[in-house]
């Protein structure tokens, strides 16, 4: 496990290597480490941000010192605390945590899924085969970011992997479900983007009036359910 400074108020903790070969194992390690670090309540720690193979731990050196860190060497003290919190976390059994399963309805109407035909052509499948194959995937959130509430999902059937568009679109509507390379994700709010859009969900993935503001967090399992245009219209709030 590698711990490197991310500036003077954060460290990056690399808990897994080789994401591409074993994404599921990497995620499991990240989620387990996230929980352990949260439970350790290390003085001065502000927040933890997981992503793929790393967890960033943000801290306030002044508060760390108030909480017992030696004023002349916060970094060594912090590293020791982190290693202490994560000691033995490689044992898969004890750290296995069941994350919540979130079902997300998607409408694949051509008006919403404006790149569905291109994805189908790339995969040499019909649009309906793409929809069926997409729904059969077993997805997990590896990271939330880029913009508030955007989930990066792993688990896309490899046949559906489609390169990002050469020229990103200036505006992708909120709720758009896209494929970008080997990953899939959902645009929580209207934003520019370069992923191939295959459908749209009526669910709101990001709401700053709620706390927590996001529907999904790293580790969550996601299942997609196809819905009709009528059901979509009924569900939009």
């Amino acid at each position: 496990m590698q711990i490197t400074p991310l500036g003077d108020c954060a460290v990056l903790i690399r808990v897994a290597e080789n994401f591409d070969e074993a994404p599921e194992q990497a995620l499991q390690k990240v989620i387990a480490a996230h929980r352990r670090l949260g439970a350790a309540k290390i003085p001065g720690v502000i927040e933890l941000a997981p992503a793929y193979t790393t967890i960033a731990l943000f801290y306030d050196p002044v508060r760390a010192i108030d909480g017992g860190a030696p004023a002349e060497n916060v970094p060594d003290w912090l590293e020791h605390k982190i290693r202490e919190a994560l000691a033995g976390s490689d044992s898969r059994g004890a750290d296995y945590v069941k994350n919540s399963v979130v079902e997300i309805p998607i409408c694949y109407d051509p008006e919403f899924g404006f790149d569905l035909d291109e994805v189908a052509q790339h995969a040499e499948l019909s649009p309906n085969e793409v929809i069926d194959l997409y729904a059969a995937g077993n997805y997990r959130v590896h990271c939330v970011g880029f913009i508030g509430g955007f989930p990066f999902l792993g688990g896309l059937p490899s046949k559906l992997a489609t390169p990002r568009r050469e020229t990103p679109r200036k505006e992708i509507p909120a709720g758009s479900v896209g494929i970008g390379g080997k990953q899939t994700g959902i645009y929580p709010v209207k934003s520019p983007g370069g992923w191939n859009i295959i459908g749209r969900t009526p669910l709101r993935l990001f709401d700053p009036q709620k706390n927590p503001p996001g529907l999904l967090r790293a580790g969550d399992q996601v299942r997609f359910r196809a819905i009709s245009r009528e059901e979509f219209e009924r569900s939009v709030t």
Partner: protein
Amino acid sequence: MKATAIRAGFLTSVQDLGRAGLREFGVSPGGALDPHALRVANLLVGNKEPAAGLEITFGGLRIRFADDRVIAWCGGDFEACIGSMRLASGHAALVQSGEDFSIESPAIGCRAWLAISGGIDVPVFLGSRATDLKAGFGGMNGRAIRDGEQLLLGENSERSKTLAETLRTGRIASWKPPHNWSNPAQPEPVLRFIRGSDADHCTAEAMRTFSRSGFFVSPDSDRMGVRLDGPRLERTSEKDLLSEAVAPGTVQVPPNGRPILLLNDCQTIGGYPKLAHVITFDLPIAAQLRPADTVRFSEVTLLEAHRVLCERERDLQQFRGGIEWHLK
């Protein structure tokens, strides 16, 4: 009570100390680009340090008060006035009902933070009143303030009322914080950095160039980041990395070799190699950079970065004590 932005200026937004704890949902911390300046300005007017104030970019703001308030500002080399009376940075002053505070474009620097006693009372989103301009929430309907708009102000604290009484005759306090707190802008600044976690994804020459050359601030800089023109920094690979957290102060190198210094509204994750991290203590200076400014970078150790940060926090503690003394 309310204050009216007669003229809103180039880009004025409501900011406080931002939102912590939401990076796992992709929400950046945001808040005042110079949190220290806002804390100091708030202390000067008798507010709690995290109270919401105005972040003023390139001046042009004229704000009219409907009741008596204590105000103070910290930031770049601006000309500011209450009516026709000049108000230098870092001095608490009493504005009376019907009076205007105005601030014109600065000679050096580009941003200022105005604290008003009682604070600006906009709705709290996710624990903060800060405007997230990128996501469009917080502050004044998630956007910059517009001409003629009214700002709701909170109640004056007992401390602010006492301050107002002491300023009734002289109007402007004679005491002020250290100059580099009230006026952090510098011509041709040198920003200190610690080596980045992906420095080995750039060539050794790139690191030398970064710490020896001058860079120019590009016009497409904003609250998300300062984009730098100058010598191209070569990467060892064109391929980006698996996304991981970035933070304000991170200097990342995209494939075009033009470094970007991230500020508070930056994305929470990124895949460009992180060459360096500007130390937190120097981010207020970075927040003053304007297009065409020259900036240089100089490496320090992490321990040095912590030392200066902790020292300033101790000094701020003393400054709080000093204000108590003035109130007696």
